[in-house]
C-alpha cells in the first residue's frame, strides 16, 4: 500500500534508510487464510459481546446459555445439525455459482421455488405413491423448480449480459409475491384460519434420523451433496471449466470453453441445489408453506460460502458453526432476553471483518537493511 505522505529529509534532502516497511507478500498460504478467518471470528465475538451488553444481558451468562443450547445434550446437538442442514445446501449452491464468478444472490428465492415445487408434487401425488417413490420425486420437483428459478437469470446473463446480481434479487421478490398470491388463492388450506398450504401427506415427510429429535434424512442428503460438489469442481472436466471461467473467462474462451453455456448451467445448478434445500427443510420440518417460510437461509448461504472459502469442506464446517449459533442464540434469548436477530447482525459483521482480514494478511512488515 502506498502511504502518500512525504517523508521529510534532513536539511540537505538526504532520505534516511528505512528500517520497517509494509510490503505485499508474494503469495498467501493456506495457513494465513485460516488465520484471517480466525481473526474475523474473534473480532465478531467481541462485537457480539458488545451487542449482548447493550441488550442488557450478562455476557458470561449469555455465552453459557448459548453453548448449552448448541451442544449441551444429544437433543440440542441434533438440533444444531438440523439447523445447519438447509444453510449447508444454500452455501453449496452459492459456492458453485461464485466459483464461476456468478454472483447468485437469489438462493433465497430459489429455496422458496424448490420448496414450492416439493409441496406441489407431494400434494399432487401424495395419495398415490409410497414414501420410497414420493420423497425422491419431491426432491426432483424441487431440483426442477429451483433450477428454473436459477436458470432464468443465467440465461438472461448469457444472452443479454444483464447483471445476475440484480436479476436474482428481483426474482427473490417476485417469487415471494407469487407464493403470497397462491397462498391466498388456490393453495390455501381451507380448514385453517392461517394463511398456509395444507399439510404435506405423511408419505412425503422425511424420516427422522434420531428418535426424540427433529433431525431428519435431509442432513445426510446435504452431506452427500457436499461430497458431490467437491467431486464436480475438482475431479470433473465440467468443474474444471467452471473454475476456469470464474477466474479468466477470456482465456477460457480462447481455449474453446463455451462461457454462455457454463453460465446457464451453473446458475441452473446453483438454483437447483438451493431448491433442494427447500425440498429438505419443508418436508423435513414444517411440512407446509406459509409466508414465513423463507427465513434468510439464502443470504446466510452467502456468508457460509465466503467463510468456507468456496470449498465444500469449509462450507460444511461453516454451516455447522452457524447452525450452532442459531440454536445457541435461541437458547440465549430464552435465558437472557437478547433478541434472536443478533444472529443476522453478526453474520454481516463476520463477513465485513473477513473481507478486512483477508486484505490485511496479504501484507507483512519487513525489516529492510540498505547500505549506502
Amino acid at each position, binding site marked *: *500500500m*502506498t502511504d*502518500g505522505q512525504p517523508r521529510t529529509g534532513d536539511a540537505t534532502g538526504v532520505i534516511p534508510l528505512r528500517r520497517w516497511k509494509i510490503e*505485499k507478500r508474494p503469495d498467501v498460504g493456506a495457513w494465513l487464510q485460516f488465520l484471517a478467518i480466525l481473526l474475523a471470528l474473534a473480532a465478531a465475538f467481541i462485537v457480539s459481546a458488545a*451487542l449482548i451488553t*447493550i*441488550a442488557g444481558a450478562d455476557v458470561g451468562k449469555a455465552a453459557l446459555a448459548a453453548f448449552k443450547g448448541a451442544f449441551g445434550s444429544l437433543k440440542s446437538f441434533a438440533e444444531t445439525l438440523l439447523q445447519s442442514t438447509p444453510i449447508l445446501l444454500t452455501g453449496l449452491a452459492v459456492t458453485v455459482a461464485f466459483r464461476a464468478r456468478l*454472483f447468485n*444472490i437469489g438462493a433465497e428465492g430459489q429455496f422458496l421455488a424448490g420448496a414450492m415445487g416439493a409441496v406441489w408434487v407431494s400434494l399432487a401425488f401424495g395419495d398415490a405413491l409410497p414414501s420410497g417413490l414420493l420423497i425422491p420425486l419431491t426432491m426432483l420437483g424441487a431440483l426442477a423448480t429451483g433450477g428454473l428459478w436459477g436458470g432464468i437469470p443465467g440465461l*438472461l446473463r448469457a444472452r*443479454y*449480459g*444483464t*447483471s445476475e*446480481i*440484480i*436479476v436474482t*434479487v*428481483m*426474482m*427473490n*421478490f*417476485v417469487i*415471494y*409475491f*407469487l407464493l*403470497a*398470491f397462491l397462498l*391466498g*388463492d388456490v393453495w390455501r388450506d381451507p380448514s385453517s384460519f392461517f394463511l398456509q398450504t395444507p399439510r404435506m401427506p405423511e408419505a412425503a415427510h422425511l424420516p427422522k434420523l434420531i428418535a426424540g429429535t427433529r433431525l431428519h434424512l435431509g442432513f445426510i442428503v446435504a452431506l452427500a451433496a457436499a461430497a458431490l460438489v467437491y467431486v464436480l469442481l475438482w475431479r470433473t472436466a465440467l468443474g474444471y471449466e467452471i473454475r476456469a471461467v470464474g477466474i479468466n473467462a477470456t482465456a477460457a474462451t480462447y481455449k474453446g470453453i463455451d462461457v454462455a453455456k457454463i453460465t446457464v448451467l451453473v446458475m441452473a445448478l446453483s438454483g437447483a441445489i438451493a431448491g433442494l434445500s427447500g425440498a429438505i427443510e419443508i418436508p423435513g420440518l414444517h411440512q407446509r408453506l406459509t409466508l414465513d417460510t423463507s427465513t*434468510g437461509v439464502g*443470504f446466510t448461504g*452467502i*456468508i457460509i460460502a*465466503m467463510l468456507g472459502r468456496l470449498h465444500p469442506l469449509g462450507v460444511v464446517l461453516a454451516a455447522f458453526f452457524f447452525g450452532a449459533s442459531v440454536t445457541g442464540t435461541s437458547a440465549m434469548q430464552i435465558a437472557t432476553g437478547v*433478541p434472536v*436477530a*443478533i*444472529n*443476522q*447482525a*453478526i*453474520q*454481516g*459483521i463476520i*463477513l*465485513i471483518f473477513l*473481507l*478486512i482480514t*483477508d*486484505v490485511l494478511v496479504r501484507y507483512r512488515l519487513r525489516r529492510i537493511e540498505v547500505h549506502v
Partner: protein
Amino acid sequence: MSELWDVAFIASLLAGMVRLATPILLAALGELITERAGILNLGVEGMMLTGALVGFLVAYGTGSLWLGTAAAVLCGGLLGLLMAFMAATLKVDQILVGLALNLLALGSTTFAYRLAFKDVGTQNPTTISTFGTVKVPGLADIPLLGEVLFSQHALTYLALLVVPAAYFFLYHTKYGLELRGIGDNPRAVDMRGVAYTRRQYAAVAFGGMMAGLGGAFLTLAASGLFVPDISAGRGWIAIALVIFGNWQPVWIMFGALFFGLIDSFQLSLQAVGVDVPHELLLGLPYLLTIVALVLNRRRTQMPLSLGIPYYRESR
C-alpha cells in the same frame, strides 16, 4: 370502472407517482455519483434500511422529525465512509462489501428495533406522525399540476432539485470533471497528481447520505412506522435505475417516475376497489426491473473503471 378516468383519480395517481418515486430517486442519484467515481456500491439497500430505522428511532425518541432526518443522513454517510474505506483504501471486492453491508444492516436494524419496541407481532406497530406535505404558495392551486407537483413533501422537492444539481456538478464543474475522470481511468487522474482516493470517499459518502435520506422518507414521510426490511428491495431498484438511466441524471429521474407510477397505480386500483390480486401487482415493479434491464442493454456511458480497484504499483 368509470371512476378510473376522472380528473381526481388521475391527479391522485400522478401525485402518488411523484411521491413514491422520491426514495428511489434520492438513492439512485446518490449511487450515480458513487459510480461515477468508479465504485459500485451494492449496499444501497442496507443504507436505505439503516436510514429508515435510525430516522424512525431518533424521531420517536426526540419528537423531532428533522432531527430524525439528520440522523438518518448521518448514518448513511457513515456507512458510506465504511464502504469507501473497504473499496478505495483496502481495495476489497466491491460486490462482496456491498452484500455484507446489506446483511449487516438487515440484522442490525431488526435487532435494534426489537430491542427498542416490544410490539413483536405486526398487529399494532408503533407509529409516529409524519412530515406533512408542503404546498407551494400560488402554484399549488393550479388544477391538476398543482396537486401533482406542488403539494409534495419537502424531501420530494429536494429530490427533484438534486437532478439538475447533479447534472450541473458532473458537467460544469471542475470536481465533476475530475470525478468522471476517476471513474473512467483512475490511473490517468492519479498520474496528474490528483488525490483521487479523497474524491472517492466523498462520492461514496454522498451516496450513503442520499440512500439514508431515501430511507428516512419511507418512515418519516411515507408511512410513519417501521417494519423489518421496510425498504423491500428499493435500494436494488435504485441501482438498476442508474444502469438503465445510462448514468444520466435526467433519465434516472424518468425511470424513478416510471416506477413511482407503477406503484401508485397499484395502490390506486386497490383504493378504488378493483378486483385484481394485489400480491401480483406488488411483485410487478420487480418484474419490470428485470424487463427494463434486458430491454436497455447499451450501457454506453458506464464508467469504464466501475468496480475495478486501482493499484498504483503494478507489483
